[in-house]
């Protein structure tokens, strides 16, 4: 490592440590800003120093859980990792994690870098990081005010993949036509994953689907089976584009339970049954993505199945914490498809529920809350005992529930997140669960409020 980079790394780490000491949060981002400012090529140089290279995970939904599953799989193999676990997934967050990982002589402590990357940041990270594997989960409409349309992001990715070194593996979701279509952008090996079990699928595309047109020729796609959003078994009647056969698949039997999933994993060489300790079909996709990536990194299949069975949920992804004699279940919501799948998972248990839904409209949340009207809150409407609506857009949320036919006397509007949490806990019967569904910045506020109640550790320690 050259002296300039070494100095930059030390300065960055000092900034992170200072930020943490001042109680300004985990210091996960500030250090990266300092390093990049002092050494603009830091990402490339720090990545190159890692003996087992870098893996990038990107996509609209499932980045954090997929990369945490993969981290768990690799840790089980004794691979020392540097990982942006807290989800700081823009360039400064990644550089900061790399700087933290460097010892005083400028050498990396870890062997492999595992980074989740924001969709719009991926094109900027791909060249410098020269990853040995890239995992792409899905593309759904998300924060249209910030990213624009899904086809726009797909096109950015297609161009960016030209920088992926030829021997590197590209891990793609076979069931998402926008993602599967990216295989042509890479000269090297492609590993597809997907769901083969027919039971969770349906014949009709839901209203919030984004990819009704063939990404290759523009004709309407024909779906034999739809799992959720535009994920399913599709083919184009006009050109030859069709769903590729997955190398790693969830085959029948597949059983979705309220708190876990019984999964049959098909990998080259056989099938493995396991209990994934995460609920929801979207977590099946996350597990498949992690398994496919692990396979591309030469982890043996039995070890993959074992590790998936012993995973713990990530920050704010259906994580459950105890608060006195009640429990709080946290599930980040940020776009129509992801939120609808969280609701579907909650609705699988038909018991009456107390909810806290906190909708902020700050930049990191997306400033346009129109998406709330594309979410199927109707799935849960009859199970809502009380919903406390909070955040800067508390009233929008309450109105959405009124039009999902939740009686107004079951709705509480409390814009302040901390007060809303207290209200929600008071409305939850002892021994019961408060289901908290916050947008990103509201999740941070909820975590901080829970922390003040002594309920959880700060998330960067998680």
């Amino acid at each position, binding site marked *: 490592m050259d002296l300039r980079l070494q100095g930059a790394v030390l300065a960055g780490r000092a900034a992170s440590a200072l930020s943490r000491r001042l109680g300004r949060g985990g210091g996960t981002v500030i250090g990266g800003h300092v390093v990049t400012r002092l050494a603009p090529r830091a990402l490339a140089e720090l990545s190159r120093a890692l003996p087992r290279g870098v893996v990038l995970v990107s996509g609209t939904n499932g980045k954090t859980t997929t990369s945490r599953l993969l981290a768990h799989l690799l840790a089980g193999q004794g691979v020392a990792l540097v990982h942006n676990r807290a989800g700081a997934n823009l360039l400064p967050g990644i550089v900061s994690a790399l700087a933290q990982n460097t010892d005083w002589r400028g050498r990396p402590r870890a062997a492999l870098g595992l980074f989740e990357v924001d969709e719009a940041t991926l094109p900027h990270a791909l060249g410098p990081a020269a990853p040995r594997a890239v995992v792409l989960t899905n593309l759904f409409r998300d924060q249209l005010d910030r990213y624009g349309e899904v086809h726009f992001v797909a096109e950015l990715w297609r161009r960016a993949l030209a920088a992926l070194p030829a021997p590197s593996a590209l891990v793609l979701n076979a069931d998402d036509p926008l993602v599967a279509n990216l295989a042509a952008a890479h000269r090297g090996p492609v590993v597809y994953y997907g769901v083969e079990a027919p039971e969770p699928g349906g014949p009709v595309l839901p*209203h919030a689907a984004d990819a009704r047109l063939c990404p290759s020729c523009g004709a309407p796609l024909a779906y034999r089976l739809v799992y959720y959003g535009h994920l399913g078994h599709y083919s184009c009647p006009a050109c030859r584009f069709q769903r590729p056969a997955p190398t790693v698949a969830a085959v029948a039997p597949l059983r979705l339970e309220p708190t876990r999933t019984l999964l049959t994993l098909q990998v080259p060489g056989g099938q493995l049954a396991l209990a994934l300790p995460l609920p929801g079909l979207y977590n099946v996709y996350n597990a498949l993505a992690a398994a496919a990536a692990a396979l591309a990194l030469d982890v043996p299949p039995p070890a993959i199945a074992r590790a998936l069975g012993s995973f713990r949920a990530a920050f704010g992804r259906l994580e459950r914490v105890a608060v006195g004699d009640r429990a709080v279940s946290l599930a980040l919501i940020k776009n129509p498809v992801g939120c609808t799948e969280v609701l579907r998972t909650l609705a699988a248990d038909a018991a009456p529920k107390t909810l806290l839904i906190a909708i902020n409209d700050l*930049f990191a949340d997306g400033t*346009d*809350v129109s998406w709330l009207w594309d979410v199927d809150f109707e799935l849960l409407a009859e199970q809502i005992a009380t919903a406390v609506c909070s955040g800067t857009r508390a*009233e*929008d949320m*309450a*109105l959405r529930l009124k*039009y999902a036919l939740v009686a107004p006397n079951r709705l509480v509007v409390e814009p302040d997140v901390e007060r809303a949490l207290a209200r929600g806990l008071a409305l939850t019967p002892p021994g019961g669960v408060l289901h908290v569904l916050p947008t990103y910045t509201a999740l941070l506020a909820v975590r901080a409020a829970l922390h003040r109640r002594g309920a959880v550790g700060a998330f960067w320690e998680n």
Partner: protein
Amino acid sequence: MAEPTAAAYTLTLAHLYPELMSTYGDRGNLLALQRRAAWRGIVLRIEPIGLGVPLDPDRYDLYFFGGGQDREQAVVADDLQRKGPALRAAAAGGAVMLAICGGYQLLGHEFRTGEGAALPGVGVLDVRTVAGARRHIGNVIVRCELDGAVRTLVGFENHSGQTYLGPGARPLGRVEVGAGNNGADGTEGAVCGDVYGCYLHGSLLPKNPWFADHLLRRALVRRYGVAVPFPPLDDSLEERAHQAVLARVRTVGRAAVGVR
């Protein structure tokens, strides 16, 4: 809030291209119309009209046309030409139409792309749209005069097309906050008879219930004459949401402005 079992009055709405033109929560507009009708004992039937589906102009009281992504919009523009005569007949016959964003642009005469190509529209709104270099993104407050009353509409715009009104259209309102039709003349939306177009997502109608009721009333008058009972609803939550947006936008501004 129970749905009525036997309805004295029924309206039928054509939802144009629901699969391709429903990107920004515009479905909330249909929910608002349907619920607000039901709460008054009126049934609103919604029928999807997609690609290649013929359109019977005598069948529908209301039409809704949402916003879409560019790719989808080009496919729709092509199909729409075959529905043009039916839509023009419906508009001439006084059917009530609401079009948002991409749908608004396509109800006009044409959309001229950045490459100079012209996508023809239906021409039931006397407006023309040209692609702009800058994207207008953010919260919007519109002052609006309809039926002699001045009221506000709140919503969220996200468009790069710039729409200009011809002499046959009047603006739906004037922007207090936001870019509006073209970022230059201070107008937002267009009205020709009972055809309404605008750039307001949000969704538009739930937070602006007076406008939803205006559309329903116009459709009822056309179908049944003036005698249909149309009692007021308890709109305290709607009003609270409307006021919250006004307050938030007037204090913190419209947030994301032309970021792309």
